Protein backbone atom coordinates (compact mmCIF):
# COMPACT_ATOMS: atom_id res chain seq x y z
CA UNK A 1 0.00 0.00 0.00
CA UNK A 2 0.92 3.64 -0.36
CA UNK A 3 3.65 4.78 1.95
CA UNK A 4 2.09 7.01 4.63
CA UNK A 5 4.33 9.97 3.81
CA UNK A 6 2.57 10.20 0.42
CA UNK A 7 -0.94 10.08 1.87
CA UNK A 8 -1.71 13.75 2.22
CA UNK A 9 -5.36 13.46 1.26
CA UNK A 10 -7.67 11.83 3.75
CA UNK A 11 -9.71 9.19 1.99
CA UNK A 12 -13.14 8.65 3.42
CA UNK A 13 -15.42 7.29 0.70
CA UNK A 14 -15.60 3.75 -0.74
CA UNK A 15 -12.52 2.72 -2.75
CA UNK A 16 -13.07 2.79 -6.50
CA UNK A 17 -9.69 1.99 -7.99
CA UNK A 18 -6.97 0.21 -6.04
CA UNK A 19 -3.49 -0.02 -7.47
CA UNK A 20 -1.17 -2.30 -5.51
CA UNK A 21 2.57 -2.70 -6.09
CA UNK A 22 2.20 -2.16 -9.82
CA UNK A 23 5.30 -2.29 -11.99
CA UNK A 24 5.16 -2.13 -15.75
CA UNK A 25 8.11 -2.57 -18.09
CA UNK A 26 8.39 -2.98 -21.82
CA UNK A 27 11.49 -4.13 -23.74
CA UNK A 28 13.32 -4.28 -20.42
CA UNK A 29 12.67 -0.58 -19.66
CA UNK A 30 10.68 0.20 -16.54
CA UNK A 31 7.88 2.65 -17.35
CA UNK A 32 6.21 2.49 -13.93
CA UNK A 33 7.64 1.08 -10.74
CA UNK A 34 5.99 0.10 -7.49
CA UNK A 35 2.86 2.22 -7.84
CA UNK A 36 0.51 2.05 -4.88
CA UNK A 37 -2.57 4.16 -4.35
CA UNK A 38 -6.27 4.00 -3.93
CA UNK A 39 -8.86 6.46 -5.14
CA UNK A 40 -12.42 6.74 -3.98
CA UNK A 41 -15.77 7.07 -5.64
CA UNK A 42 -16.50 10.63 -6.67
CA UNK A 43 -12.81 11.53 -6.86
CA UNK A 44 -11.54 14.11 -9.34
CA UNK A 45 -7.89 13.23 -9.72
CA UNK A 46 -5.35 15.15 -11.76
CA UNK A 47 -2.30 13.11 -12.79
CA UNK A 48 0.75 15.23 -13.54
CA UNK A 49 4.36 14.53 -14.38
CA UNK A 50 6.98 15.16 -17.06
CA UNK A 51 6.94 13.50 -20.47
CA UNK A 52 7.73 9.80 -20.15
CA UNK A 53 6.61 9.73 -16.50
CA UNK A 54 4.15 6.90 -17.24
CA UNK A 55 0.91 8.89 -16.98
CA UNK A 56 -0.71 7.48 -20.12
CA UNK A 57 0.63 4.03 -19.26
CA UNK A 58 -1.14 4.28 -15.90
CA UNK A 59 -4.47 5.01 -17.61
CA UNK A 60 -3.92 2.12 -20.03
CA UNK A 61 -3.17 -0.18 -17.10
CA UNK A 62 -6.35 0.91 -15.32
CA UNK A 63 -8.31 0.15 -18.51
CA UNK A 64 -6.66 -3.27 -18.82
CA UNK A 65 -5.31 -2.42 -22.29
CA UNK A 66 -1.92 -3.49 -20.97
CA UNK A 67 -1.22 -5.74 -17.99
CA UNK A 68 1.21 -4.98 -15.18
CA UNK A 69 4.36 -7.12 -14.87
CA UNK A 70 3.97 -7.04 -11.11
CA UNK A 71 1.14 -6.10 -8.78
CA UNK A 72 -2.56 -5.76 -9.49
CA UNK A 73 -5.25 -3.26 -10.33
CA UNK A 74 -8.77 -3.56 -9.01
CA UNK A 75 -11.79 -1.50 -9.94
CA UNK A 76 -14.50 -1.93 -7.34
CA UNK A 77 -12.79 -5.16 -6.38
CA UNK A 78 -12.70 -6.50 -9.94
CA UNK A 79 -9.90 -6.89 -12.47
CA UNK A 80 -10.23 -4.22 -15.23
CA UNK A 81 -11.50 -6.72 -17.83
CA UNK A 82 -14.11 -8.08 -15.41
CA UNK A 83 -15.25 -4.55 -14.59
CA UNK A 84 -15.49 -3.69 -18.31
CA UNK A 85 -17.65 -6.78 -18.88
CA UNK A 86 -20.14 -5.24 -16.46
CA UNK A 87 -20.01 -1.59 -17.45
CA UNK A 88 -17.97 0.70 -19.68
CA UNK A 89 -15.40 3.26 -18.65
CA UNK A 90 -15.54 6.65 -20.37
CA UNK A 91 -12.19 7.22 -22.05
CA UNK A 92 -10.63 9.99 -24.09
CA UNK A 93 -7.25 8.87 -25.44
CA UNK A 94 -4.44 11.31 -26.11
CA UNK A 95 -4.53 10.59 -29.83
CA UNK A 96 -7.22 9.15 -32.03
CA UNK A 97 -6.29 7.37 -35.26
CA UNK A 98 -6.36 9.93 -38.11
CA UNK A 99 -8.15 7.47 -40.43
CA UNK A 100 -11.43 8.25 -38.75
CA UNK A 101 -11.26 11.84 -39.99
CA UNK A 102 -10.94 10.66 -43.60
CA UNK A 103 -14.30 8.90 -43.43
CA UNK A 104 -17.68 10.61 -43.55
CA UNK A 105 -18.78 9.96 -39.96
CA UNK A 106 -21.08 12.47 -38.33
CA UNK A 107 -20.93 13.63 -34.72
CA UNK A 108 -24.24 11.87 -34.04
CA UNK A 109 -22.91 8.59 -35.49
CA UNK A 110 -19.78 8.85 -33.38
CA UNK A 111 -21.77 9.47 -30.20
CA UNK A 112 -24.25 6.68 -31.04
CA UNK A 113 -21.36 4.24 -31.41
CA UNK A 114 -20.72 4.61 -27.67
CA UNK A 115 -23.93 2.83 -26.62
CA UNK A 116 -25.13 -0.67 -27.35
CA UNK A 117 -28.82 0.06 -27.61
CA UNK A 118 -29.72 3.31 -29.31
CA UNK A 119 -31.73 5.74 -27.23
CA UNK A 120 -32.46 9.12 -28.78
CA UNK A 121 -32.80 10.73 -25.33
CA UNK A 122 -29.39 9.52 -24.17
CA UNK A 123 -27.66 10.61 -27.37
CA UNK A 124 -29.38 14.02 -27.13
CA UNK A 125 -28.30 14.32 -23.48
CA UNK A 126 -24.64 13.66 -24.30
CA UNK A 127 -24.66 15.99 -27.30
CA UNK A 128 -26.45 18.78 -25.40
CA UNK A 129 -24.08 18.41 -22.45
CA UNK A 130 -21.21 19.54 -24.64
CA UNK A 131 -23.34 22.12 -26.47
CA UNK A 132 -22.69 20.57 -29.88
CA UNK A 133 -26.30 20.11 -31.07
CA UNK A 134 -25.60 22.35 -34.07
CA UNK A 135 -22.80 19.97 -35.11
CA UNK A 136 -24.66 16.67 -34.87
CA UNK A 137 -25.09 16.20 -38.63
CA UNK A 138 -21.61 17.48 -39.43
CA UNK A 139 -18.85 15.15 -40.49
CA UNK A 140 -15.89 14.84 -38.09
CA UNK A 141 -13.50 16.04 -40.77
CA UNK A 142 -15.35 19.36 -40.91
CA UNK A 143 -14.80 20.06 -37.21
CA UNK A 144 -12.08 22.02 -35.43
CA UNK A 145 -9.80 20.33 -32.86
CA UNK A 146 -11.90 21.59 -29.93
CA UNK A 147 -15.15 20.48 -31.56
CA UNK A 148 -13.72 17.03 -32.22
CA UNK A 149 -12.60 16.85 -28.59
CA UNK A 150 -16.15 17.62 -27.44
CA UNK A 151 -17.60 15.04 -29.85
CA UNK A 152 -15.30 12.34 -28.47
CA UNK A 153 -16.09 13.40 -24.91
CA UNK A 154 -19.81 13.12 -25.68
CA UNK A 155 -19.10 9.62 -27.01
CA UNK A 156 -17.18 8.78 -23.83
CA UNK A 157 -20.13 9.84 -21.69
CA UNK A 158 -23.10 8.60 -23.68
CA UNK A 159 -23.07 5.22 -21.91
CA UNK A 160 -23.22 7.12 -18.60
CA UNK A 161 -20.07 5.56 -17.13
CA UNK A 162 -19.21 5.97 -13.47
CA UNK A 163 -15.54 6.44 -14.29
CA UNK A 164 -14.10 8.88 -16.81
CA UNK A 165 -10.43 8.72 -17.85
CA UNK A 166 -9.13 11.67 -19.84
CA UNK A 167 -5.68 11.86 -21.37
CA UNK A 168 -4.65 15.48 -21.88
CA UNK A 169 -8.15 16.72 -22.71
CA UNK A 170 -7.15 20.39 -22.94
CA UNK A 171 -4.40 19.89 -25.52
CA UNK A 172 -5.06 21.77 -28.74
CA UNK A 173 -8.17 23.60 -27.64
CA UNK A 174 -8.61 27.34 -27.11
CA UNK A 175 -9.19 28.93 -23.66
CA UNK A 176 -12.96 29.25 -24.23
CA UNK A 177 -13.33 25.60 -25.16
CA UNK A 178 -11.09 24.68 -22.21
CA UNK A 179 -13.29 26.64 -19.78
CA UNK A 180 -16.41 24.97 -21.20
CA UNK A 181 -14.79 21.58 -20.78
CA UNK A 182 -13.74 22.27 -17.18
CA UNK A 183 -17.25 23.46 -16.33
CA UNK A 184 -18.75 20.26 -17.74
CA UNK A 185 -16.26 18.06 -15.89
CA UNK A 186 -17.04 19.84 -12.62
CA UNK A 187 -20.75 19.36 -13.20
CA UNK A 188 -20.28 15.67 -14.03
CA UNK A 189 -18.25 15.18 -10.88
CA UNK A 190 -20.43 17.17 -8.49
CA UNK A 191 -23.93 16.58 -9.86
CA UNK A 192 -23.62 13.16 -11.47
CA UNK A 193 -21.00 11.67 -9.14
CA UNK A 194 -18.74 10.64 -12.03
CA UNK A 195 -15.22 9.81 -10.85
CA UNK A 196 -12.71 11.57 -13.09
CA UNK A 197 -9.02 10.86 -13.68
CA UNK A 198 -7.28 13.44 -15.87
CA UNK A 199 -3.75 13.18 -17.21
CA UNK A 200 -2.57 16.71 -17.84
CA UNK A 201 0.33 19.07 -18.33
CA UNK A 202 -2.05 21.95 -17.61
CA UNK A 203 -1.13 22.00 -13.93
CA UNK A 204 -2.36 25.51 -13.13
CA UNK A 205 -5.84 24.82 -14.49
CA UNK A 206 -6.35 21.48 -12.81
CA UNK A 207 -4.93 22.82 -9.55
CA UNK A 208 -8.23 24.68 -9.27
CA UNK A 209 -10.46 21.96 -10.66
CA UNK A 210 -9.36 18.64 -9.25
CA UNK A 211 -9.88 17.41 -5.72
CA UNK A 212 -6.56 15.66 -5.61
CA UNK A 213 -3.34 15.50 -7.56
CA UNK A 214 -1.08 12.53 -8.24
CA UNK A 215 2.51 13.44 -9.10
CA UNK A 216 4.14 10.73 -11.16
CA UNK A 217 7.65 10.29 -12.43
CA UNK A 218 7.91 6.57 -13.15
CA UNK A 219 7.38 6.19 -9.40
CA UNK A 220 4.84 8.00 -7.27
CA UNK A 221 6.18 11.33 -6.10
CA UNK A 222 3.17 12.39 -4.06
CA UNK A 223 -0.61 12.25 -3.88
CA UNK A 224 -2.87 14.74 -2.15
CA UNK A 225 -4.99 17.87 -2.20
CA UNK A 226 -3.82 20.40 -4.81
CA UNK A 227 -3.11 23.21 -2.33
CA UNK A 228 -0.81 20.91 -0.37
CA UNK A 229 0.83 19.23 -3.34
CA UNK A 230 1.38 22.05 -5.78
CA UNK A 231 4.37 23.57 -4.04
CA UNK A 232 7.80 24.12 -5.49
CA UNK A 233 9.29 21.49 -3.20
CA UNK A 234 7.17 18.80 -4.83
CA UNK A 235 7.34 20.32 -8.31
CA UNK A 236 11.14 20.26 -8.14
CA UNK A 237 10.90 16.48 -7.83
CA UNK A 238 8.96 16.36 -11.09
CA UNK A 239 10.58 19.18 -13.03
CA UNK A 240 14.05 19.76 -11.47
CA UNK A 241 15.15 22.34 -14.04
CA UNK A 242 11.88 24.23 -14.33
CA UNK A 243 10.01 26.67 -12.09
CA UNK A 244 6.35 25.64 -12.21
CA UNK A 245 4.95 28.57 -10.21
CA UNK A 246 7.21 31.56 -11.04
CA UNK A 247 4.64 34.08 -9.68
CA UNK A 248 5.10 32.63 -6.21
CA UNK A 249 8.81 33.34 -6.14
Amino acid at each position, binding site marked *: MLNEKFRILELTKKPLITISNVTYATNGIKILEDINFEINQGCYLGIIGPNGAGKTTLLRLILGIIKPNLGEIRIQGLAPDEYLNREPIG*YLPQRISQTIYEMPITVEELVRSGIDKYSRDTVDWAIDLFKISSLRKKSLKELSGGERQKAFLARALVAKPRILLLDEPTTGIDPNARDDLLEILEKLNKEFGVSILVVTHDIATFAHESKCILCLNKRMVCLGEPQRILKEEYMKLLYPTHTVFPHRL
Partner: protein
Amino acid sequence: MIEIFELNIIKRAFIVVSLIAPLAPLFGIFLILRRYAFFADTLAHVGFLALALSVFFGLNSLLLLIVLSIIVSLSVEQLRSKGKLPAEGSLSFFLYSGVALSVLFITFSGKTGSVMSILFGSLSTVTKEDVYLILIGAIFCFVFLIKYHKKMLNLCIDEELAHSSGINLSNLKVIFALTVAVSISISIKTMGALLIGSLMIIPPLSAMQITKSLRTTTILSVIYSILSSYAGIFLSYYSGIPLGASISVILIGVFIFSFILKLFR
Protein backbone atom coordinates in the same frame (compact mmCIF):
# COMPACT_ATOMS: atom_id res chain seq x y z
CA MET B 1 -32.26 -8.75 -74.64
CA ILE B 2 -34.83 -10.96 -72.91
CA GLU B 3 -33.26 -14.18 -74.23
CA ILE B 4 -30.23 -13.87 -71.95
CA PHE B 5 -32.46 -14.39 -68.90
CA GLU B 6 -33.39 -17.82 -70.23
CA LEU B 7 -29.80 -18.99 -69.88
CA ASN B 8 -29.00 -20.88 -66.69
CA ILE B 9 -25.54 -19.32 -66.32
CA ILE B 10 -27.06 -15.84 -66.48
CA LYS B 11 -29.78 -16.71 -63.97
CA ARG B 12 -27.09 -18.13 -61.69
CA ALA B 13 -24.91 -15.05 -62.19
CA PHE B 14 -27.78 -12.76 -61.18
CA ILE B 15 -28.52 -14.85 -58.08
CA VAL B 16 -24.86 -14.89 -57.00
CA VAL B 17 -24.35 -11.19 -57.74
CA SER B 18 -27.50 -10.33 -55.76
CA LEU B 19 -25.90 -12.06 -52.77
CA ILE B 20 -22.31 -10.81 -53.04
CA ALA B 21 -22.82 -7.27 -54.38
CA PRO B 22 -24.42 -5.89 -51.19
CA LEU B 23 -21.97 -7.76 -48.95
CA ALA B 24 -18.65 -6.78 -50.53
CA PRO B 25 -18.86 -2.97 -49.97
CA LEU B 26 -20.13 -3.44 -46.40
CA PHE B 27 -16.94 -5.32 -45.57
CA GLY B 28 -15.01 -2.83 -47.71
CA ILE B 29 -16.10 0.06 -45.49
CA PHE B 30 -14.67 -1.66 -42.42
CA LEU B 31 -11.48 -2.61 -44.27
CA ILE B 32 -10.96 1.01 -45.38
CA LEU B 33 -11.69 2.30 -41.87
CA ARG B 34 -9.11 -0.11 -40.43
CA ARG B 35 -6.60 0.71 -43.18
CA TYR B 36 -6.72 -2.94 -44.05
CA ALA B 37 -7.79 -2.93 -47.71
CA PHE B 38 -4.63 -4.90 -48.55
CA PHE B 39 -6.10 -7.76 -46.47
CA ALA B 40 -8.77 -8.29 -49.15
CA ASP B 41 -6.06 -8.50 -51.84
CA THR B 42 -4.06 -11.03 -49.86
CA LEU B 43 -7.07 -13.27 -49.29
CA ALA B 44 -8.01 -12.95 -52.95
CA HIS B 45 -4.54 -14.15 -53.99
CA VAL B 46 -4.79 -17.03 -51.54
CA GLY B 47 -8.11 -17.74 -53.28
CA PHE B 48 -6.12 -17.97 -56.50
CA LEU B 49 -4.04 -20.69 -54.84
CA ALA B 50 -7.17 -22.55 -53.67
CA LEU B 51 -8.60 -22.52 -57.18
CA ALA B 52 -5.24 -23.65 -58.60
CA LEU B 53 -5.15 -26.51 -56.07
CA SER B 54 -8.67 -27.53 -56.97
CA VAL B 55 -7.70 -27.60 -60.68
CA PHE B 56 -4.63 -29.69 -59.82
CA PHE B 57 -6.34 -32.16 -57.45
CA GLY B 58 -9.83 -32.05 -58.99
CA LEU B 59 -11.50 -31.07 -55.70
CA ASN B 60 -14.56 -28.91 -54.91
CA SER B 61 -12.97 -25.55 -55.49
CA LEU B 62 -15.35 -23.36 -53.46
CA LEU B 63 -15.13 -25.49 -50.34
CA LEU B 64 -11.32 -25.56 -50.59
CA LEU B 65 -11.37 -21.80 -51.18
CA ILE B 66 -13.39 -21.14 -48.03
CA VAL B 67 -11.23 -23.43 -45.85
CA LEU B 68 -7.89 -22.07 -47.11
CA SER B 69 -9.02 -18.43 -46.88
CA ILE B 70 -10.20 -18.93 -43.29
CA ILE B 71 -6.88 -20.56 -42.29
CA VAL B 72 -4.85 -17.74 -43.86
CA SER B 73 -7.02 -14.90 -42.54
CA LEU B 74 -6.85 -16.27 -38.99
CA SER B 75 -3.07 -16.77 -39.30
CA VAL B 76 -2.59 -13.18 -40.53
CA GLU B 77 -4.74 -11.80 -37.71
CA GLN B 78 -2.86 -13.84 -35.10
CA LEU B 79 0.55 -12.80 -36.45
CA ARG B 80 -0.64 -9.19 -36.52
CA SER B 81 -2.13 -9.11 -33.02
CA LYS B 82 0.78 -10.91 -31.38
CA GLY B 83 3.25 -8.63 -33.15
CA LYS B 84 5.22 -11.60 -34.51
CA LEU B 85 5.38 -10.06 -37.99
CA PRO B 86 4.64 -6.52 -39.15
CA ALA B 87 1.05 -6.41 -40.49
CA GLU B 88 2.05 -5.39 -44.02
CA GLY B 89 4.87 -7.93 -44.01
CA SER B 90 2.64 -10.88 -43.08
CA LEU B 91 0.06 -9.85 -45.69
CA SER B 92 2.75 -9.59 -48.38
CA PHE B 93 4.17 -12.97 -47.42
CA PHE B 94 0.81 -14.72 -47.87
CA LEU B 95 0.02 -12.75 -51.04
CA TYR B 96 3.24 -13.66 -52.85
CA SER B 97 3.19 -17.23 -51.54
CA GLY B 98 -0.35 -17.56 -52.87
CA VAL B 99 0.60 -16.31 -56.33
CA ALA B 100 3.83 -18.32 -56.59
CA LEU B 101 2.24 -21.61 -55.50
CA SER B 102 -0.80 -21.01 -57.73
CA VAL B 103 1.38 -20.65 -60.81
CA LEU B 104 3.27 -23.81 -59.80
CA PHE B 105 0.12 -25.94 -59.40
CA ILE B 106 -1.57 -24.58 -62.53
CA THR B 107 1.55 -25.26 -64.60
CA PHE B 108 1.75 -28.85 -63.32
CA SER B 109 -1.98 -29.39 -63.86
CA GLY B 110 -1.53 -28.55 -67.56
CA LYS B 111 -4.76 -26.52 -67.54
CA THR B 112 -3.34 -23.05 -68.00
CA GLY B 113 -6.47 -22.04 -69.93
CA SER B 114 -8.37 -21.74 -66.63
CA VAL B 115 -6.11 -18.91 -65.46
CA MET B 116 -8.18 -16.12 -67.10
CA SER B 117 -11.41 -17.10 -65.36
CA ILE B 118 -9.62 -17.58 -62.01
CA LEU B 119 -7.96 -14.18 -62.19
CA PHE B 120 -10.73 -12.10 -63.73
CA GLY B 121 -13.97 -13.96 -62.96
CA SER B 122 -16.41 -15.68 -65.22
CA LEU B 123 -20.13 -16.03 -65.88
CA SER B 124 -19.87 -19.77 -66.24
CA THR B 125 -17.63 -21.11 -63.46
CA VAL B 126 -20.26 -20.93 -60.70
CA THR B 127 -21.96 -24.33 -60.46
CA LYS B 128 -25.43 -25.12 -59.09
CA GLU B 129 -23.79 -26.58 -55.95
CA ASP B 130 -21.72 -23.41 -55.57
CA VAL B 131 -24.92 -21.34 -55.42
CA TYR B 132 -26.03 -23.18 -52.28
CA LEU B 133 -22.62 -22.74 -50.64
CA ILE B 134 -22.59 -19.04 -51.61
CA LEU B 135 -26.09 -18.64 -50.14
CA ILE B 136 -24.99 -20.20 -46.82
CA GLY B 137 -21.82 -18.08 -46.78
CA ALA B 138 -23.77 -14.90 -47.53
CA ILE B 139 -26.28 -15.60 -44.73
CA PHE B 140 -23.36 -16.15 -42.32
CA CYS B 141 -21.82 -12.81 -43.36
CA PHE B 142 -25.11 -10.89 -43.13
CA VAL B 143 -25.76 -12.30 -39.65
CA PHE B 144 -22.27 -11.17 -38.58
CA LEU B 145 -22.86 -7.67 -39.93
CA ILE B 146 -26.25 -7.33 -38.25
CA LYS B 147 -24.91 -8.61 -34.91
CA TYR B 148 -21.50 -6.95 -34.83
CA HIS B 149 -21.64 -3.80 -36.98
CA LYS B 150 -21.64 -1.45 -34.01
CA LYS B 151 -18.76 -3.24 -32.33
CA MET B 152 -16.88 -3.24 -35.64
CA LEU B 153 -17.43 0.51 -35.96
CA ASN B 154 -15.96 0.99 -32.49
CA LEU B 155 -12.97 -1.18 -33.41
CA CYS B 156 -12.44 0.92 -36.53
CA ILE B 157 -12.76 4.28 -34.73
CA ASP B 158 -10.12 3.43 -32.14
CA GLU B 159 -9.11 0.11 -30.56
CA GLU B 160 -8.56 1.60 -27.11
CA LEU B 161 -11.95 3.32 -27.17
CA ALA B 162 -13.53 0.03 -28.18
CA HIS B 163 -11.76 -1.72 -25.31
CA SER B 164 -12.99 0.86 -22.80
CA SER B 165 -16.54 0.17 -24.02
CA GLY B 166 -16.13 -3.43 -22.87
CA ILE B 167 -15.67 -4.95 -26.33
CA ASN B 168 -13.57 -8.14 -26.46
CA LEU B 169 -11.21 -7.05 -29.23
CA SER B 170 -9.34 -10.29 -29.81
CA ASN B 171 -12.56 -12.28 -30.34
CA LEU B 172 -14.02 -9.58 -32.55
CA LYS B 173 -10.91 -9.41 -34.74
CA VAL B 174 -10.92 -13.18 -35.21
CA ILE B 175 -14.62 -13.26 -36.14
CA PHE B 176 -14.12 -10.33 -38.52
CA ALA B 177 -11.11 -11.99 -40.20
CA LEU B 178 -13.10 -15.20 -40.56
CA THR B 179 -16.13 -13.44 -42.04
CA VAL B 180 -14.03 -11.40 -44.49
CA ALA B 181 -12.47 -14.68 -45.63
CA VAL B 182 -15.92 -16.17 -46.24
CA SER B 183 -17.18 -13.07 -48.06
CA ILE B 184 -14.15 -13.06 -50.38
CA SER B 185 -14.36 -16.81 -50.96
CA ILE B 186 -17.97 -16.70 -52.08
CA SER B 187 -17.28 -13.78 -54.43
CA ILE B 188 -14.05 -14.90 -56.02
CA LYS B 189 -15.42 -17.16 -58.77
CA THR B 190 -17.58 -14.33 -60.05
CA MET B 191 -15.18 -11.43 -59.62
CA GLY B 192 -11.83 -13.21 -60.05
CA ALA B 193 -8.87 -13.28 -57.68
CA LEU B 194 -7.37 -10.04 -58.98
CA LEU B 195 -10.58 -8.01 -59.01
CA ILE B 196 -12.65 -9.02 -55.97
CA GLY B 197 -11.02 -6.15 -54.06
CA SER B 198 -12.53 -3.68 -56.51
CA LEU B 199 -16.09 -4.70 -55.54
CA MET B 200 -15.21 -4.26 -51.88
CA ILE B 201 -13.28 -0.99 -52.06
CA ILE B 202 -14.43 1.09 -55.06
CA PRO B 203 -18.16 1.41 -54.12
CA PRO B 204 -17.43 2.88 -50.63
CA LEU B 205 -14.71 5.12 -52.07
CA SER B 206 -17.13 6.39 -54.72
CA ALA B 207 -19.91 6.96 -52.18
CA MET B 208 -17.53 8.82 -49.85
CA GLN B 209 -16.98 11.44 -52.55
CA ILE B 210 -20.52 12.74 -52.17
CA THR B 211 -21.77 11.68 -48.74
CA LYS B 212 -21.35 13.20 -45.29
CA SER B 213 -22.43 10.37 -43.02
CA LEU B 214 -21.52 6.72 -42.57
CA ARG B 215 -25.18 5.77 -43.00
CA THR B 216 -25.50 7.38 -46.45
CA THR B 217 -22.06 6.07 -47.45
CA THR B 218 -23.21 2.55 -46.59
CA ILE B 219 -26.52 2.83 -48.45
CA LEU B 220 -25.01 4.47 -51.54
CA SER B 221 -22.09 2.06 -51.76
CA VAL B 222 -24.46 -0.92 -51.69
CA ILE B 223 -26.59 0.69 -54.43
CA TYR B 224 -23.47 1.41 -56.53
CA SER B 225 -22.24 -2.14 -56.04
CA ILE B 226 -25.54 -3.82 -56.98
CA LEU B 227 -26.20 -1.65 -60.04
CA SER B 228 -22.61 -1.97 -61.30
CA SER B 229 -22.69 -5.74 -60.84
CA TYR B 230 -25.97 -6.16 -62.74
CA ALA B 231 -24.70 -3.90 -65.51
CA GLY B 232 -21.43 -5.87 -65.49
CA ILE B 233 -23.29 -9.11 -66.26
CA PHE B 234 -24.78 -7.57 -69.42
CA LEU B 235 -21.43 -6.07 -70.43
CA SER B 236 -19.68 -9.38 -69.91
CA TYR B 237 -22.32 -11.35 -71.83
CA TYR B 238 -22.42 -9.07 -74.86
CA SER B 239 -18.72 -8.14 -75.02
CA GLY B 240 -17.04 -11.35 -73.88
CA ILE B 241 -15.00 -9.46 -71.26
CA PRO B 242 -14.52 -11.56 -68.08
CA LEU B 243 -17.24 -10.78 -65.51
CA GLY B 244 -14.93 -9.36 -62.82
CA ALA B 245 -13.31 -7.03 -65.32
CA SER B 246 -16.70 -5.89 -66.66
CA ILE B 247 -17.99 -5.06 -63.18
CA SER B 248 -14.71 -3.33 -62.25
CA VAL B 249 -14.78 -1.17 -65.40
CA ILE B 250 -18.27 0.01 -64.55
CA LEU B 251 -17.22 0.65 -60.93
CA ILE B 252 -14.34 2.80 -62.17
CA GLY B 253 -16.88 4.79 -64.22
CA VAL B 254 -19.04 5.20 -61.12
CA PHE B 255 -16.05 6.45 -59.14
CA ILE B 256 -15.15 9.02 -61.82
CA PHE B 257 -18.79 10.15 -61.95
CA SER B 258 -18.88 10.61 -58.14
CA PHE B 259 -15.54 12.38 -58.14
CA ILE B 260 -16.69 14.86 -60.79
CA LEU B 261 -20.00 15.33 -58.97
CA LYS B 262 -18.05 16.24 -55.83
CA LEU B 263 -16.12 18.91 -57.74
CA PHE B 264 -19.37 20.58 -58.85
CA ARG B 265 -21.10 20.48 -55.45
